[in-house]
């Protein structure tokens, strides 16, 4: 049993932390207020490896271990929820399926440019207007073989990064008969004729991470853009989401950590009834509660990541880590605002932004309810 990070992980954590402190965190407020994606910081992420966490070295990626990937996403979350979500989705959703299921040619053509930072980012479109938690029953976007091309028609919703991506991996129905083998993944370049990316959704938080509806109007891509096997789309999606859940858990730990640090700082500065509020027991309880929950969530995220790295089953642990971390982040942010009093409700302080950003985390990449189903199944089935 060993709870220490190894030498490489420690150096990595410090390097990413320093990078985020200098390039990402100072811009978080502006990113939220202007809803402009922080390209300036992202353009510098290539050499550090943040754009190729899962991509192998021979394709320009960093190929870091799963714990290091979680560390990086936590640090990004500590800096800026929007930037962190974009990078988490880029790595975990847009890049990971190609790294895992893609052919060498697909890795060369699609993964390498985005992993090195030479290109833009990557995206994954699963959700549709009528299909979120229930993809198997709900996905209606279909791909039909026509000569040496796929012809794709349908609409996707809530696609993170669509407008800032080179390609969108799209979950499509390839067998109209339905069933668990009726879905497939296809790589669709964002410049394909017939692909329409709607203006960014107006959201409660994460405003600097663009989310879009995407329409496929007879979009044609070569047959070789099929990712993995035909009919394995649902399986590949579930595998991808297992990894993505560790990432969203890590991101939530980072958000909570940032809100916690802000609350600790503020509790020393603000005085009421003749002493700093940090000296009031009610405040201390909230600080202690937050510290406990952050620590436990981080440990669970690292455990799930470690299992993944060992090549062991981690579906249950990823669901536990994601559900616990995302729900605790919401509570920690809520209490961080409480500790700030009226100022916490103001945009002058970061905690209201972090609270809004944290709110998504119990919804995206498997809602808390769906994750509880995943967990319960392990004990009841």
């Amino acid at each position: 049993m060993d709870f220490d990070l190894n030498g490489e992980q420690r150096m990595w954590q410090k390097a990413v932390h320093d990078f985020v402190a200098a390039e990402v965190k100072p811009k978080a407020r502006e990113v939220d207020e202007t809803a402009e994606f922080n390209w300036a910081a992202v353009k510098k992420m290539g050499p550090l490896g943040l754009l190729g966490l899962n991509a192998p070295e021979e394709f320009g990626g960093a190929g870091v271990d799963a714990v290091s990937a979680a560390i990086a996403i936590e640090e990004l979350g500590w800096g800026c929820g929007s930037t962190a979500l974009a990078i988490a989705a880029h790595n975990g959703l847009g890049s990971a399926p190609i790294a895992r299921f893609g052919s060498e040619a697909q890795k060369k053509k699609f993964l390498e440019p985005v992993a090195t930072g030479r290109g833009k980012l990557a995206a994954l479109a699963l959700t549709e207007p009528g299909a979120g938690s229930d993809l198997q029953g709900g996905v209606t976007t279909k791909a039909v073989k026509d000569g040496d091309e796929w012809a794709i028609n349908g609409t996707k919703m809530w696609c993170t990064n669509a407008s800032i991506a080179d390609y969108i991996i799209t979950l499509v129905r390839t067998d109209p008969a339905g069933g668990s083998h009726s879905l497939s993944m296809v790589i669709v370049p964002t410049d394909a004729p017939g692909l329409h990316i709607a203006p960014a959704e107006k959201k409660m938080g994460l405003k600097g991470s663009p989310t879009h509806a995407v329409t496929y109007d007879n979009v044609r891509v070569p047959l070789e853009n099929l990712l993995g096997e035909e009919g394995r789309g649902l399986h590949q999606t579930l595998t991808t989401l297992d990894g993505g859940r560790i990432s969203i858990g890590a991101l939530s730990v980072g958000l909570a950590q940032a809100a916690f640090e802000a609350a600790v700082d503020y509790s020393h500065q603000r005085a009421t009834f003749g002493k700093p509020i940090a000296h009031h027991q009610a405040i201390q309880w909230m600080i202690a509660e937050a510290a406990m929950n952050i620590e436990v969530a981080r440990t669970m995220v690292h455990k799930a990541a470690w299992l993944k790295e060992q090549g062991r089953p981690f579906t249950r642990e990823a669901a536990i880590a994601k559900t616990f971390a995302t729900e605790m982040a919401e509570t920690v942010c809520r209490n961080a605002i409480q500790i700030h009093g009226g100022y916490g409700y103001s945009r002058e302080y970061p905690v209201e932004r972090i609270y809004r950003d944290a709110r998504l985390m119990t919804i995206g990449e498997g809602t808390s309810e769906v994750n509880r189903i995943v967990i319960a199944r392990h004990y009841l089935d």
Partner: protein
Amino acid sequence: MKIVACIKQVPDSAAKVVAQDGQVSWGDAPLVINPWDEFAVEAALQQKEAHGGEVIAVSMGGESAKEALKHALAMGCDSAILVSDPALAGVDTQGTAKVLAAAIQKVGGVDLAFFGRQAIDGDAGITPAQTARVLGWPMLGLSAVIKVDGGKVTVERSIEEGRQTVSAEAPAVLSVVKDFGEPRYPSFMGIRKASRADIPAWTLADLGISAPAPVVAWPELMNPPSREVACEFITGGSPAEIAEKLADKIIAEKVL
């Protein structure tokens, strides 16, 4: 081209440094690579990228200074050497210069030795010049722009009066200022290499020199007298009124 970047490990700039029982203490603040030395590493790496060759990071310090050397490796240096010897504890800048010069000579065939403009702990800023003197090499201090053409090094020095262009023949010692440009972040490739690097530690015996005799002594160390700071809020009905009150106060306190 063979390039050495001399770096020092120092307490983080956020550390609270105090004199305690005649010793300087920074509590449990983390130790980091001297921020100015990151500019030296950047300048060294750019010369390597322009002309080929290798960059060797050298630090004199305790075992912990290997962490600072690893940062230099993570930025892209090819190798690193620690010079460490119990006899060097508390050595002054002239002694440091003698040790670094001996290390540079032991590396052998060095064309350029880069330093940061000063270390944020001692703030002396004279080690680069002293090292140049021991080596008998020209000193190009406070360099903001560096050009190497064959054996000739031309730099723009950033000095109070403006910029001064000077040149010298290599081998030479350079110190680098902030105007040179932002140092790069470590890369994941560098981190991977650095975390696996086996950094050799040279002793005085390895350098073939004896412990340099100190020329500067610190008979007493004390904290600067603490200043009484009072905070006063200036209020008024309008910004103009507040500004007027503030201006009066500034004049009354002889700030201006």
